[in-house]
C-alpha cells in the first residue's frame, strides 16, 4: 500500500470580488484541480510549480489542515481531515514561511514541550534530539529563545521539531526559502542523510531546483492545480526537449555561423569567436569534427541541460499545451 494516495484531489476557494460601488460577486477559484498521485514508503518526492500552482494547498490537504472540495486522500492509511489528530502523530511538517516553535521559549524548552505534546518516551526523545543536535549543529543556540534565532538557525530547529516524534512521512513546504548558502547546504545535507536511511517518506515543495536535484529522484511539476509532469529529472529534460550545449572557442571569427547537421547554432558570442551549439541529433565528436574542418579550435566545453531553463519554459507554456503525464 502506498504511504500517500491522492485520487482526484480538488480544492476550490470562494472569493468575493468587487463588482460595483456596493456590490460584490462570488467567484470560485480552483487551487487544486484533480490531482492523482501515489507515493511509496521511503520515497523522496520533489514538488515544483509556479507561485499559486497549488503545491502548498495540496500539502495542506494531505496534512489535514485544509478540507478538500472533492476527491480522496490517504496518508499512512488515514483520512487527513477526519483523522487529523491521529495523523499528526505519524507525520512531521515544516513550513519554510511559518514556525511551529514557541516564539517566547528557548529551543530546548520547545523540544521538551513537543515531547509531551506528542507523548514520546524520554529515551526515544533524547536519542533523536542527540542525533539532530549532532547533524544540525544545534548546541550553540539550544538555549536561545526562538524569537532571537536567525532564519537558518530557526529552520534547523524546525526540522528537529518535526522529527522528534519519529514521523513516517515528512512534509516540507519550501524549507530552504530565504536561507543563505551555508544553511541551505546544512538543511539539504540533513535531508539527504534522512532520505538515505530509507524509512521516512519525504515530500518537498520548493522553488529552488537545486533542492530537487540534490534530494529527489522523483519530480512532480504542478501548474494550474494539475500535475503536468511526474517522473525523474532526466525524463523532464527528454520530454521538454532539453539539450546539451557545446561551447566552441575559436581562434578567429568565421564570416558566417557554420551549419552543422543535427547541431544548430544557439548563440554567437565574443564577436563571433565563441559559438554555442545545441546537440539535437549530432554527437559532440561530430560537432568537433565539423568545426575542425572550418577553423582552428582553441577550446571546447560541454554544458549540461539547465533544469531551471526547462522549468521556466514549462511554466511559460500555455496550460492547454501541457499534456498530462
Amino acid at each position, binding site marked *: 500500500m502506498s504511504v500517500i494516495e491522492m485520487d482526484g484531489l480538488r480544492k476550490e476557494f470562494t472569493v468575493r470580488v468587487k463588482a460595483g460601488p456596493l456590490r460584490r460577486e462570488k467567484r470560485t477559484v480552483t487551487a487544486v484541480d484533480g490531482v492523482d498521485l501515489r507515493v511509496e514508503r521511503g520515497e523522496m518526492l520533489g514538488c515544483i510549480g509556479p507561485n499559486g500552482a497549488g503545491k502548498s494547498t495540496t500539502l495542506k490537504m494531505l496534512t489535514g489542515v485544509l478540507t478538500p472540495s472533492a476527491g480522496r486522500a490517504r496518508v499512512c492509511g488515514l483520512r487527513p481531515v477526519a483523522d*487529523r489528530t491521529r495523523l499528526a*502523530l505519524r507525520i512531521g511538517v515544516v513550513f519554510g514561511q511559518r514556525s511551529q516553535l514557541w516564539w517566547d521559549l528557548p529551543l530546548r524548552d520547545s523540544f521538551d514541550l513537543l515531547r509531551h505534546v*506528542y*507523548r514520546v518516551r524520554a529515551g526515544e526523545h533524547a536519542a533523536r534530539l542527540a542525533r539532530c543536535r549532532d547533524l544540525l549543529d544545534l548546541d550553540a543556540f539550544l538555549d536561545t529563545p526562538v524569537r532571537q534565532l536567525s532564519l537558518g538557525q530557526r529552520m534547523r530547529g524546525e526540522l528537529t521539531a518535526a522529527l522528534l516524534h519519529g514521523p513516517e512521512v515528512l512534509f516540507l513546504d519550501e524549507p530552504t526559502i530565504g536561507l543563505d548558502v551555508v544553511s541551505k547546504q546544512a538543511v539539504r545535507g540533513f535531508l539527504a542523510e534522512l532520505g538515505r536511511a530509507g524509512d521516512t517518506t519525504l515530500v518537498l515543495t520548493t522553488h529552488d531546483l537545486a533542492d530537487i536535484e540534490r534530494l529527489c529522484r522523483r519530480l512532480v511539476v504542478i501548474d494550474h492545480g494539475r500535475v503536468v509532469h511526474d517522473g525523474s529529472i532526466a525524463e523532464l529534460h527528454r520530454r521538454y526537449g532539453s539539450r546539451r550545449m557545446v561551447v566552441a572557442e575559436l581562434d578567429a571569427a568565421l564570416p558566417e555561423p557554420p551549419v552543422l547537421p543535427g547541431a544548430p547554432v544557439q548563440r554567437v558570442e565574443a564577436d563571433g569567436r565563441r559559438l554555442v551549439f545545441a546537440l539535437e541529433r549530432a554527437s559532440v565528436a561530430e560537432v568537433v569534427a565539423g568545426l575542425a574542418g572550418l577553423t582552428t579550435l582553441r577550446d571546447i566545453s560541454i554544458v549540461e541541460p539547465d533544469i531551471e531553463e526547462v522549468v521556466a519554459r514549462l511554466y511559460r507554456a500555455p496550460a492547454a499545451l501541457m499534456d498530462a503525464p
Partner: protein
Amino acid sequence: MGSVTATVAPPTGAHVTPWFRTFGAIAAAGFRRHATYRQAAVAGLCTNTVFGFLRCYVFLAATGAAGTVAGYDRAQLATFVWAGQGLLAVIAIWGWTDLADRIRTGEVAADLLRPVHPVTSYLATDLGRAGFASLARLVPPLVVGPFFFAVYLPRHWATVPLFLLSALLAVVVCFGCRYLVNATAYWLQDVRGPMILWTLGSGVLAGLYFPLGFLPGPLEAVLRYATPFPSILQVPLDVLVEREPMSTGLTLIGVQAGWAVLLLALCRLVQRRAERRLVVQGG
C-alpha cells in the same frame, strides 16, 4: 539516521493520565512564556494600581452617608475593587488576540498540525498564563489595597477556597468568550469590530465599570444567570466579599461551571465549523 525516524508505533489511545500530563506541560510552558515578559508585568501592575485608587475613590463616594450601596459596605467595596484590579490580569479580559493574529497570518496551520485539539491547547496555555498572572498581578494589589483602605476580610473559612475555585472558573469562562471573539477571524479576517464590542460589553456586563448590584434587581438577575459576563469577574468578587449567603455563592459558582462547560463546547463547535472553510492566509 535511524534514531531520528519512526521505529516505534506512536500511542494512539485516549488515556486520561497522559492527557493530563500533556495538558500540564502545555500549561507550564504557558507560565514560562508569560514569565519572560517581566517588564510588561510591572507596567501592567502600575496601571492596575493607579486605576485601583481611582475606582476605589469613585465607588466609596457612591456609598454616601449611609455607608452602603447595592448591598456592599465600604470595606466590601474596597475589597471588590482591589481584588478586581488583580483579577483583571488573571482573567485577561482584554487584549488577547493570539488566535485572531494567527488566523490572520496563517500561522494557525501550525496549531492544526499538532495532536492536541486547538481549544485544549489554547486553554492549557491560558491557564499557565493565568498562573503567572496570579503571582505577578493578583497578589500585589491585594497587598497594596489594605495599606490605604479599610478592606473586608472574609469571615467564613470556606470563602477563600471558593474564591479560588470561582476565579479558576472565571478564567475558563473568559477564555471561552475570548476564543469565540478571536475565532470570528476565521470568517472576517479582521476582528477589530468584534473586539470593540467585546471590550465594551465585557467591561459593562462583567461588573468592571460598576458592580452589577448597582443595576435594578431583575436586570442583575438576568445578567447573572442568562449571560456569561458576570461569571468572568462579578461572581468571584461577590464570593470573596461574602455579599450573598453561602448557598447563593455556591449556586453562582455552579452557574459559572455551567457556562465554562457550555462555552468550551461552543468553542469546539465553532472551531470544527471554521476548519471546514479554513483558508490559510499567505500560501
